[in-house]
């Protein structure tokens, strides 16, 4: 071991003064590895409703993978190729599943009041991710280059124009929508999902609504039982 290394390891943990050092300290404090990648979860995390969050992520993975294949061959490929049609179908159905799982996930979190205990940011990022996903789906529908995309572009423009958004976001502009659909909105969605997941890990899974009562009752029961009976 060199003298420099030994001195470094022995140095007291002084607060960082650099930006990168502060970021490291913040991450170490808020999200240590055992919190980021835990091997255990609270015992109350035992319901099928918890599966829908990860199913939503799985569907997002299939959307990105099938979308990447479609992106390489262009928006009109699937009209003339059976392989293209199959990948378009994968993209189409994974989007349907994605929204189905996400809506169930959101509904589940609502009935669990999952925003409790300083988890409001987790809830908000989830809702914003849903809104961005709706935008990503809309742009996906208008870049199908078929009758449905003509119809949706014609209809959707009125709503967007009515609130002034249509001046910048033109659903009848295939080039603009293709770029927004393939790059911009997936990038934003990816960042939101990453923040959402990190917040879940930072705060942990929300305890049951009356967990304190249950804990107290359990404690009282344990105390009232003789030592040998426990």
């Amino acid at each position, binding site marked *: 071991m060199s003298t420099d290394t030994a001195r470094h390891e022995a140095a007291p943990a002084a607060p960082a003064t650099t930006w990168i050092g502060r970021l490291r300290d913040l991450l170490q404090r808020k999200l240590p590895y055992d919190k980021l*990648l835990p091997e255990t979860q609270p015992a109350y995390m035992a319901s099928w409703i918890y599966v829908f969050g990860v199913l939503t992520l799985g569907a997002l993975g299939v959307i990105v993978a099938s979308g990447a294949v479609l992106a390489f061959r262009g928006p009109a490929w699937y009209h003339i190729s059976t392989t293209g049609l199959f990948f378009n179908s994968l993209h189409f159905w994974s989007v349907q599943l994605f929204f189905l799982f996400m809506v169930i996930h959101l509904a589940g979190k609502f009935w669990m009041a999952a925003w409790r205990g300083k988890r409001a940011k987790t809830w908000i990022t989830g809702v914003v991710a849903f809104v961005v996903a709706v935008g990503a789906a809309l742009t996906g529908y208008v870049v199908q280059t078929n009758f449905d995309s003509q119809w949706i572009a014609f209809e959707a423009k009125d709503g967007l124009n009515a609130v002034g958004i249509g001046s910048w976001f033109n659903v009848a502009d295939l080039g603009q929508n293709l770029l927004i659909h393939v790059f911009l909105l997936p990038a934003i969605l990816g960042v939101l999902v990453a923040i959402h997941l990190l917040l879940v890990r930072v705060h942990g899974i929300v305890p049951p609504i009356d967990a304190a009562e249950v804990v107290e009752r359990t404690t009282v029961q344990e105390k009232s039982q003789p030592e040998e009976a426990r």
Partner: protein
Amino acid sequence: MSARTKQETLEREPWTGPARHYDIIKEGVIATLVVTVLTVALAAIFSSPDDPALTFHGWAKDAPDSLYATTVSELAGTSDSATYGPPYNNNGDGQMMGSLTPQKWAGVRQPVDPPNDFVINPLASQQQPADVATALETWKSAGADQQTSWATAYDTALNDPKGANGDATKVPTGEYGPVPTLATGLVAMAESGALDGVLPAPGQFFTTDNTKQILFLGDGSYLDDAGTANHLQGNQWGMMNETGNFPGQQWLAPFSFWYQLPVFNSEAETGFAATLTANGDIYILAIIAVMMLIVMFLPFIPGLRSIPRLIPIYKLVWRDYYKNQK
């Protein structure tokens, strides 16, 4: 410490109660595999919707009279596009909510000039028969007032319900200038297939913007009839539908719902319902924006945030936990 304080502390602090082994990575991999298998099965069994896009060629072949009448309305400035307002032109105010006119505030950012963009420029970009070429020269050399006078007179005569009623062969003689010949020329151009290639950007190589095609197509009944036949109209829950029997954007149900209400589908010409129907999009989008904000900030809204506590569905979610702690 009160029960409420204990509960809030429990929610804020890291959980120190009973725990169970849980491999999130393994769960994620299994979930992705399950979704992949499910997606492959759905794709293999049901495929995906792909009704071909409508074309001006198809419009000219299937409904030439409709294309002819729409072309005349573009020249006369009476079509939906010609009277739309921002962001395409200043020929209309657009939708408004009280004194709020965001459509107008945004201004004209995608200029569309229907007579020239949909009719004159496409015709001028191709070699035309002698009569159409002469009609083009006559139109271009006339003043704006003269052009409007010809086109309006012909548009009125063509659509007179007690006269021609859409049939060009029954239009009485009048001062229509080159308008009938220009409309006939554009229908012929569409029938040849040339209009589909020329319309987006006459004389240019690259085209990625379909605004002009979409607007022109939507000005006639051809697109509208196809939308109705496929149950895609706004008042048919069309926002959530797809062509064929495929699911559409089901997640837009809370949005589509409002378009089904009679107050946003009124036949009235005056009054509250007429105002809401004419400006339905801006009112419904405002409602949706408020709804989204409510959902987003639900954790901070007294009353609403207590609903899960008052309707204890959570007891089903955590039933194993309660059972094991008894």
